[in-house]
């Protein structure tokens, strides 16, 4: 009993995997505690709330976070059918401000944040000189000269450092507000109805991938219509301690709508169904945006140089691998690191990056990297699941798309 998630190594004491949600070992959270390092683990402002709700807490990217409350599948289903409330205060919040903030971010990121209208946001990436992905992130244009960049928790420090360096030649300043900003997300078809009475803005005027400064539950908030679940939903960036008021208010008011607190476990299965990549799984420094199927993000058309441009121009036509979505037959789950084979081939040609039993679809899904030219829909593969092989087929992503 209790082998390690991905590798089934007995008695393994998992290290604190700073990246992304390798929740494969979640159930065994108690083994992930490293007591002598406890003081290095941050707690969010909602820590006591999670514990009072009976959450199972796990170390994640340097934080103690709730992986689940009453049950992953129950929370997952609540987000698809009603709403879920997430504490995402581990995420980074980096403000870039100044007359050249737009130009600085155009230089630092692969997208063109300078083209964003005030109040709008987009998904972006920060790459290194060789075109490898340092992180994927969301950029919000809060004002003509003011942006908020939201990186993954595991990469927040690296992103802040890279941005700081890239901003040096511009009239723009960086403020890493990660440790004084909480993030509460409400996601699901009932999110707008639950949230509307408590915010100082008509939510109908907030488009998908927009954000605005307003009030929420009586406290100042940056309210954005963004998320990582494949559902409609909102993210509320508030001062550290204000998260408690937002959390309590929404949890209470949302109960009659079917809102439940949801942990990182459900967040991972929700994003996977929605075909969204996770840094550390699908994305890393050895992967270019083109290989991850996100080449559309890279704006070669923008004026001026940007970090990674030369390498990315070359990488565009020379992908080494391609990310695909897979439907896996049988009841086994293709997990991160499991090998992918062409049918009956002796040697692996790729590997799984994420996989789960899809609660919404009722079958096993996965993402993985396969050889270039072998990524068309219906292409057949086999996944090595322990000593056996399960057949799998390439399917279009996202696996799940919300009803419109």
């Amino acid at each position, binding site marked *: *009993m209790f082998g390690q998630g991905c590798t089934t190594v007995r008695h393994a004491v998992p290290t604190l995997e700073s990246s992304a949600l390798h929740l494969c070992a979640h159930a*065994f959270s108690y083994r992930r505690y490293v007591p002598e390092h406890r003081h290095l683990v941050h707690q969010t402002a909602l820590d006591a709330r999670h514990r009072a709700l009976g959450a*199972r807490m796990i170390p994640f990217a340097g934080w103690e976070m709730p992986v689940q409350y009453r049950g992953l599948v129950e929370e997952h289903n609540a987000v698809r059918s009603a709403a879920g409330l997430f504490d995402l205060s581990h995420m980074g919040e980096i403000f870039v401000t100044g007359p050249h903030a737009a130009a600085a971010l155009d230089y630092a990121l692969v997208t063109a944040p300078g083209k964003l209208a005030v109040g709008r946001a987009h998904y972006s990436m920060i790459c290194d000189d060789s075109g490898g992905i340092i992180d994927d992130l969301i950029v919000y244009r809060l004002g003509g000269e003011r942006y908020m960049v939201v990186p993954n928790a595991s990469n927040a420090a690296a992103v802040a450092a890279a941005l700081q360096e890239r901003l040096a030649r511009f009239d723009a300043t960086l403020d890493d507000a990660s440790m004084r900003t909480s993030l509460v997300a409400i996601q699901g078809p009932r999110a707008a109805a639950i949230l509307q009475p408590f915010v100082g803005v008509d939510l109908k005027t907030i488009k998908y991938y927009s954000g605005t400064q307003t009030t929420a539950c009586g406290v100042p908030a940056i309210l954005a219509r963004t998320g990582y679940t494949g559902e409609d939903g909102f993210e509320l960036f508030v001062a550290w301690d204000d998260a408690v008021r937002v959390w309590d208010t929404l949890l209470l008011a949302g109960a009659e709508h079917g809102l439940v607190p949801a942990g990182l476990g459900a967040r991972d299965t929700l994003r996977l169904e929605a075909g969204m990549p996770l840094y550390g799984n699908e994305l890393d420094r050895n992967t270019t945006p083109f290989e991850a199927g996100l080449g559309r993000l890279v704006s070669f058309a923008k004026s001026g140089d940007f970090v990674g441009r030369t390498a990315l121009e070359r990488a565009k036509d020379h992908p080494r691998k391609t990310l695909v979505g897979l439907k896996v037959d049988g009841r*086994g*789950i293709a997990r991160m690191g499991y090998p992918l084979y062409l049918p009956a081939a002796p040697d692996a040609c790729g590997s799984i990056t994420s996989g789960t*039993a899809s*609660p919404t679809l009722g079958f096993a899904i996965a993402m993985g990297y396969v050889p270039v030219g072998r990524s068309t829909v219906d292409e057949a593969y086999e996944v090595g699941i322990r000593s056996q092989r399960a057949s799998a087929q390439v399917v279009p992503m996202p696996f799940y798309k919300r009803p419109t």
Partner: protein
Amino acid sequence: MEIPENLKYSSEHEWLAPAGRTAKIGITGYAAEHIGDIVFVELPKVGTTVIAGSSFGVIEAVKSVSELFAPVSGTVVAINERVAKEPELVSADPYGDGWLIEVDMSNDGEIAALKDSAGYRDLVASLPE
């Protein structure tokens, strides 16, 4: 946390219910709770030899895969066919309908190496959460 007094326990969170030469094996309530939503259970065929401390199967949950370790050595004489179809039985009733396999023990002396309920309760109490 339910820890029945009449069972023997391994440090790997399996329970053993000896009855003469044979014994039923399952996972404990603590294990079931920590594994979460179980997707399926992979069990050996009847007639397979299992060895104390070695893997005899796997439990797949949405977010984890856990190996099952035999608390004693022997030959599998029965498997719980119901959990193959209804894996959630393992979570719902780990000591009852969620049992996993029954073995004909080759060395019942191995039972002495297992914990009684008090010993297992101490083990669980020593684990975080």
